[in-house]
């Protein structure tokens, strides 16, 4: 086709266009006789370098050195400038690659003699291919600066020596490699006492126990109640469901604070009214063991209604035919539950149940609001009920151990990524991704 095309320019060389556009964005486009586009690219590149070049240079220097003059250079600001610079560079590289690809495509078109589009057509092309990017951009910018950048910053902080005694702008921070992690895992660098390692092990163990026990209990209770209420012999279903869902509807921070008051050792209602009937008084807020028990009970109270509502919906959608067929085969109630109800319910809700586990793993609110992670425990710098995330909060805002807090956050992040990995495998849309 191209041979018969009278407008084909055989000696127009796409390779030259690529080389030119690599040298300076827009040159390739000029060579392709797309003057407006070429000029736009050149203006964009020059203004990018003129306005942001110095900032990027400073940022990169900042993230590498974290400053050289104590009292003048602020290491934390430099770290943030550095990340902003890296994001800007990534953005510029993306545009640059787009420019090179564009030059190559246009050059091939010109060589093969396709008509150069008019300005109107070109603008329409940009609108069509660029549309998803335009629509994603506002959200993406917010996401990058409010979610991604802070997470990257935290990762970086884990490898610095930002402590209570080493704070900018008075002091400079420096990169110290894996030292913080060494403290957590091997108790190195802290002299005789292994306070970091000891605390880490005990907090981590409790976090795992908390996540597994509290979440499993709330799911089990939710499922059990959903089955009971779904029983055809039960009346007033609407009313019962409304009551059972109440704990979910009331804001959690209110109920947790109310429970904190009710569990108060000396004048809380649990000890003075309920347990007094049995002549008991339990040190709910003083003894770590009892605080943990109280927390698990409260979380079950808070968490079961959502699972209950979820399961109720699923139970109603299971076809009656299954159960009738099972009845014909003479299946017992337990067998029906195990082979029909449970698989249906779990299959439909697995991703949400995984989210429940992930949510409790990072359930800062209940731990902090109930007893601020307390009671205190000898020989460790976290309270008896602190989970990893609330420990991180304390280290940051109470003890100003920023780097250690960041190191623990990084470990948390890796575990959460593990949860997410399960999610990926479970979520159907990724299996169907090919069809979209």
């Amino acid at each position, binding site marked *: 086709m191209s041979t018969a095309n009278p407008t084909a320019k055989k000696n127009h060389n796409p390779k030259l266009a690529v080389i030119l556009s690599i040298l300076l964005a827009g040159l390739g486009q000029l060579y392709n006789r797309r003057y407006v586009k070429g000029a736009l690219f050149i203006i964009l590149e020059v203004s990018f370098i003129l306005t942001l070049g110095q900032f990027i240079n400073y940022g990169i220097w900042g993230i590498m050195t974290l400053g050289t003059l104590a009292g003048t250079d602020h290491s934390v600001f430099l770290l943030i400038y550095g990340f902003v610079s890296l994001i800007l560079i990534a953005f510029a590289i993306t545009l640059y690659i787009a420019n090179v690809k564009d030059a190559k495509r246009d050059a091939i078109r010109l060589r093969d003699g396709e008509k150069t589009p008019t300005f109107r057509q070109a603008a329409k092309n940009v609108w069509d291919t660029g549309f998803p990017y335009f629509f994603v951009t506002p*959200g993406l910018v*917010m996401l990058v600066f409010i979610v991604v950048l802070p997470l990257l910053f935290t990762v970086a902080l884990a490898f610095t020596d930002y402590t209570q005694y080493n704070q900018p702008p008075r002091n400079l921070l420096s990169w110290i490699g894996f030292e913080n992690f060494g403290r957590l895992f091997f108790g190195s660098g802290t002299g005789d006492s292994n306070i970091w390692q000891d605390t880490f092990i005990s907090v981590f163990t409790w976090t795992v126990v908390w996540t597994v026990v509290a979440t499993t209990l709330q799911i089990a209770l939710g499922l059990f109640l959903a089955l009971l209420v779904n029983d055809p012999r039960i009346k007033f279903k609407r009313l019962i469901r409304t009551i059972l869902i109440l704990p979910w509807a009331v*804001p959690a921070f209110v109920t947790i604070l109310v429970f904190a008051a009710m569990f108060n050792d000396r004048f809380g209602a649990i000890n003075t009214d309920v347990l007094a009937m049995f002549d008991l008084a339990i040190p709910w807020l003083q003894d770590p063991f009892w605080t943990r028990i109280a927390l698990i009970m409260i979380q079950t109270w808070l968490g079961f209604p959502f699972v209950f509502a979820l399961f109720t919906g699923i139970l109603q959608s299971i076809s009656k035919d299954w159960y009738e067929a099972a009845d014909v085969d003479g299946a017992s109630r337990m067998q029906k539950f195990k082979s029909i109800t449970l698989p249906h319910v779990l299959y439909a809700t697995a991703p949400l149940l995984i989210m429940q586990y992930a949510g409790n793993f990072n359930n800062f609110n209940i731990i902090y609001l109930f007893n601020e992670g307390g009671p205190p425990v000898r020989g460790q710098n976290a309270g008896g009920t602190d989970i990893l995330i609330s420990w991180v909060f304390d280290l940051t805002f109470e003890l100003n151990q920023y780097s250690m807090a960041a190191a623990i956050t990084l470990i948390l992040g890796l575990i959460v990524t593990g949860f997410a990995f399960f999610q990926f495998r479970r979520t159907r849309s990724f299996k169907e991704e090919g069809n979209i």
Partner: protein
Amino acid sequence: MSKKMKSNVEVALIYLFLAFMAVVIGYPLLWTVGMSLNPGTSLYSAQLIPDNWSLVHYKWLFTDPSSDYLLWYKNSVFVAIANAFFSVVLTSFVAYAFSRYKFTGRKYGLYAFLLLQMFPVIMGMVAIYVMLNMVGLLDSLVGLTLIYIGGQIPFNAWLVKGYFDTIPKELDEAARIDGAGHLGVFFKIMLPLAKPILGVVALFNFMAPFVDFLLPRIILRNPDNFTLALGLFNFISNQFDNNFTRFAAGSILIAVPIALVYLLSQRYLISGLTAGGTKG
């Protein structure tokens, strides 16, 4: 025991257990109501059913010159409306692109949403604090709102994208034949059909400032800028002015409307979540 008898006993046991649950659920809630009606301020002398009950705490919240309750209410409503509006706009944009277009980075973007929604905002709180400080938005409601809007994107974009996916593509194509462009399809087809899920997103984000105390606690300093949750928390976290009964009164005033909204819309909320979670 006859079969009928056995069944009756079973039903009775089920009701008994449900009654027990009702007590366990109702007791703390009613206890809070009781506390809020006690005239004194301390937990110690408070009674579940006060002898001389009074509405003095409710009156204090609204009329006392040293009470900031109405101001906090106004702040929360401001943040809630801004958050709900901009969240719906941004997420529906993102979700539309991810649901209907093929573009470079789309698949990794989806993975990123799924991963990022599991990271709580506190993980990056030091950087958020420093950055807000750098741009002068620390201790401001605008700063707080910005963080809310950005933080909700991964979860809600995923949710809305899942819902958009269930809207048949044939509708888009038909609209395109009739001359609708990218924006036409978005405004005339997607948005009207996705009203239920957008309602859920708006509701969630409207509620967030009323029930979240953590971010306000990190970002806000001046009591004039407090949101309700933070202000109420300070009623009881303040060691020298611990006032549980007043906290109870203030909490009931926000818990009742929120609980009503949740109870009335729970069906939509749950089905929206299930759709987003399983269909992705």
